[in-house]
């Protein structure tokens, strides 16, 4: 392999591929994907520890392990961490790593923008969690209902950390999504039509559209809240004429599509894994794709079902109930298609398959309770009870997390070139499956018997002690299981047996390249002729086998690395910190030496924004850059010379 000399930007660009500099300046979608995964798994453990403290507090009646204020902070941070810092970025890790490989692209459309997404995710995650160190973690619930978030009821800076953290995480999600949309629509390999796309890539596309349309409302809601807290506006301030209910509407206009942002990538993973381990094509591929799109579309029309008990009026309530019930149709279609895929297949119960089957079962349980909630009179009984907690943990753990773990076990050999031990993986799966059900099934009963959510403790006479005790035991087992999986991932990175390129005899394009994939993904341009191209290559007729076109004499064009995405996100981090500490004293930010003078926006936010703008300008001036790589001739043995191919270069 030889490289030609890199072009230079305004200043010399980082060229080192390895070590800290190589990681901080990377624009490689695979390294960025791994970065997302490391961050997400870390925050998954943090959020898990928060959950376990909550469970230990509730283990016995009138327990006092943590006080009520800390308890409120714990459930707020648990929800925020799991939604924004664990499940979303873990999905983003798969989007980044797998999607470009599935479409035969060299990288995403805007590699530096992709790096910005990663660094903004880290910056946002750090800001949200910094609140712990100032003993001011937000205690407002993950959906931060007004007027609890107002300065009057929440004078601490916890809510400000939460606002700014979510804003920066929003930038990360938006930057990623613009990139993925452009990449999927524009950079597919020749012959890879939309209806030949792997379902996971389809779900990436639909999720990206959901993100770009659902995040602006929460951005604006957070801006309005920030103005209420810092600059005396009255958006949600009752005394000034504001209506707290507006927050609920705007939050859930974001919040309900967010639910599908969490589950659609999971459904995509499942749709990849089931055919591989049933050794059959996905049953009803077009229906699975269109159901995903319909779910995404309807997701914007059901937000008020989170607000049935606020008294919306009969017409609105009925309409939202009807639309909510409607969503169960495309979801049901998907489940029947998955069952259809299994039907008559030669099923092998490997670890990814166990998680996939667990997903179908557990997600259905969560779905059934969801259908119960869609009926307003039933919902009025269940609102704010542990029944709701049971419902959304069944869809978020039994659904999203199971599918993401499934994805980890499925794609781990591709990412590292190593295998994870099957027997150990199965033990961990059954641990997680058992622990999860023991933790959350009793919550259905607790909710039915009236235990409210977000309660710090309860009296022994309520009769909730026993289910709560078993639930805590289950949560501990679940926690051990998840931690064990993370440890197994780390262990297998170093000690796993070599996997080869396609250990599962899988179907989609990412399995055609080496494991781990080379920096340039594919040494050749794949010419796609069928939906499950790699399956056709290995088992299909000659007519449907893939053609490979060698690169022309220039080699493969690669983007240059860059410092500026990191600089821009540091600028945003500083600017955000300045907004959090607006009107606070320096002593609050820097204990002992800070003094009593008050921080204004000019002190920290302005320099932060200047750094951001400076970074953006340097980013623009250096340009995408790029250099050429020549792939290993070994890879091009069966490839066609570009001049004879008749395809575009």
């Amino acid at each position: 392999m030889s490289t030609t000399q890199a072009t230079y930007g305004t200043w010399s660009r980082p060229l080192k591929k390895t070590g800290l500099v190589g990681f901080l300046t990377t624009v490689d979608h695979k390294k960025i994907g791994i970065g997302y995964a490391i961050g997400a798994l870390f925050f998954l453990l943090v959020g898990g520890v928060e959950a376990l403290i909550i469970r230990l507090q509730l283990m016995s009646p009138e327990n006092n392990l943590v006080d009520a204020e800390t308890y409120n902070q714990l459930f707020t941070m648990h929800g925020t961490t799991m939604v924004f810092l664990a499940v979303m970025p873990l999905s983003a890790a798969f989007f980044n790593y797998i999607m470009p490989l599935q479409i035969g692209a060299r990288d995403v459309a805007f590699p530096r923008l992709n790096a910005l997404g990663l660094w903004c995710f880290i910056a946002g995650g750090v800001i949200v969690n910094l609140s712990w160190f100032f003993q001011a973690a937000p205690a407002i619930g993950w959906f931060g209902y007004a007027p609890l978030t107002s300065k009057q009821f929440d004078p601490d800076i916890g809510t400000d950390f939460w606002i700014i953290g979510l804003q920066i995480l929003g930038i990360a999600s938006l930057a990623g999504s613009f990139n993925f949309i452009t990449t999927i629509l524009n950079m597919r390999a020749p012959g890879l039509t939309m209806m030949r796309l792997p379902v996971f890539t389809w779900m990436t596309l639909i999720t990206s559209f959901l993100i770009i349309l659902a995040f602006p409302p929460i951005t604006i809601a957070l801006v309005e809240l920030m103005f209420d807290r810092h600059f005396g506006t009255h958006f949600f301030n009752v005394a000034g004429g504001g209506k707290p209910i507006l927050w609920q509407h705007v939050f859930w206009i974001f919040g309900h599509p967010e639910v599908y942002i969490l589950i659609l990538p999971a459904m995509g993973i499942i749709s990849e894994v089931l055919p591989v381990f049933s050794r059959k094509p996905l049953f009803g591929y077009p229906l699975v794709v269109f159901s995903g799109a319909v779910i995404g579309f309807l997701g914007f029309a059901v937000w008020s079902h989170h607000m049935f008990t606020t008294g919306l009026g009969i017409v609105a309530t009925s309409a939202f109930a009807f639309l909510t019930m409607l969503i169960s149709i495309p979801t049901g279609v998907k489940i029947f298609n998955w069952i259809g895929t299994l039907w008559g297949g030669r099923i092998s119960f490997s670890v990814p398959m166990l998680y996939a089957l667990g997903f179908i079962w557990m997600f259905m349980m969560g779905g059934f309770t969801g259908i119960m909630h869609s009926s307003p009179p039933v919902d009025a009984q269940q609102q704010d009870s542990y029944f709701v907690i049971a419902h959304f943990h069944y869809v978020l753990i039994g659904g999203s997390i199971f599918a993401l773990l499934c994805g980890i076990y499925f794609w781990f050999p591709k990412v590292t070139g190593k295998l994870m031990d099957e027997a150990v993986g199965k033990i961990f799966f059954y641990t997680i499956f058992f622990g999860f059900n023991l933790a959350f099934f009793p919550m259905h009963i607790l909710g039915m018997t009236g235990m409210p959510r977000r309660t710090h403790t309860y009296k022994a006479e309520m009769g909730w002690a026993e289910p709560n005790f078993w639930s805590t035991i289950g949560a501990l087992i679940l926690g051990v299981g998840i931690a064990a999986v993370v440890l197994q991932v780390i262990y297998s990175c170093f000690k796993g047996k070599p996997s080869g390129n396609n250990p599962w005899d899988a179907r989609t394009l990412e399995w055609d390249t080496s494991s781990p994939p080379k920096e340039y993904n594919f040494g050749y341009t794949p010419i796609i002729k069928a939906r499950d191209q790699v399956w056709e290559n290995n088992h299909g007729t000659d007519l449907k086998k893939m053609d490979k076109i060698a690169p022309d004499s220039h080699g493969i064009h690669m983007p240059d690395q860059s410092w500026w995405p990191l600089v821009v996100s540091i600028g945003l981090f500083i600017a955000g910190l300045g907004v959090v500490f607006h009107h606070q004293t320096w002593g609050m930010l820097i204990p002992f030496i800070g003094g009593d003078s008050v921080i204004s926006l000019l002190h920290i936010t302005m320099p932060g924004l200047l750094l951001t703008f400076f970074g953006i300008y340097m980013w623009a001036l250096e340009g995408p850059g790029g250099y050429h790589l020549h792939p290993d001739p070994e890879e091009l043995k069966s490839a066609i010379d570009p001049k004879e191919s008749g395809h575009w270069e």
Partner: protein
Amino acid sequence: MADSSTHADPLEELKNTNTGVENKKMAMWAFLASDCMFFGTLISTHLIYRKIYPTVVDPTAIFSIELTGFSSFILLMSSFLMALSVSASHKKNMKSLRFFLFGTIIFGLIFLGGQVYEFSHFVHERNLTLSSNVFGSTFYVLTGTHGVHVALGVLWLASWLGYTYSKKFKWENALDIETAGLYWHFVDIVWIVIFTAVYLVEYL
């Protein structure tokens, strides 16, 4: 791009995507879709409170519709100049490109000047501040957000105007100017909606 010399028209080569739309333009369209929801939320907030409190504030006593009407007209005309800039960049006509870009920037600045005057006039003469009532909150945050969009657009176009004097400027950059133009037109279209929903509707 090292191999750009091998292609007759580098701008045409950028269209060599699955959809035939250049990557940058596709991403900008996605961004604008997102921005629609952004302004949609702000405008909805304003209209919801307008309906809840029909009589608390009489906006016609605050607005100077002649001034805002004039600056709106200027902003729309800036869109016309922007279109001419994009056309000039595709025709590789540097003189016209600079002239029309300059015009777009000036018209954008006139609009911003009008908004600055309007804000300070409302605050000092009409006693409407961010915190005087809900109308003040929604009005300033909505029109202020739009103003920030215009200001960023002006900065963006001014950067391109400056860059045309750099030796590194290439006619492939016509795509970048067109992308900035999409943003500029979008911001103008949003203003048509805001001008109607916030100002004109009060005079019905």
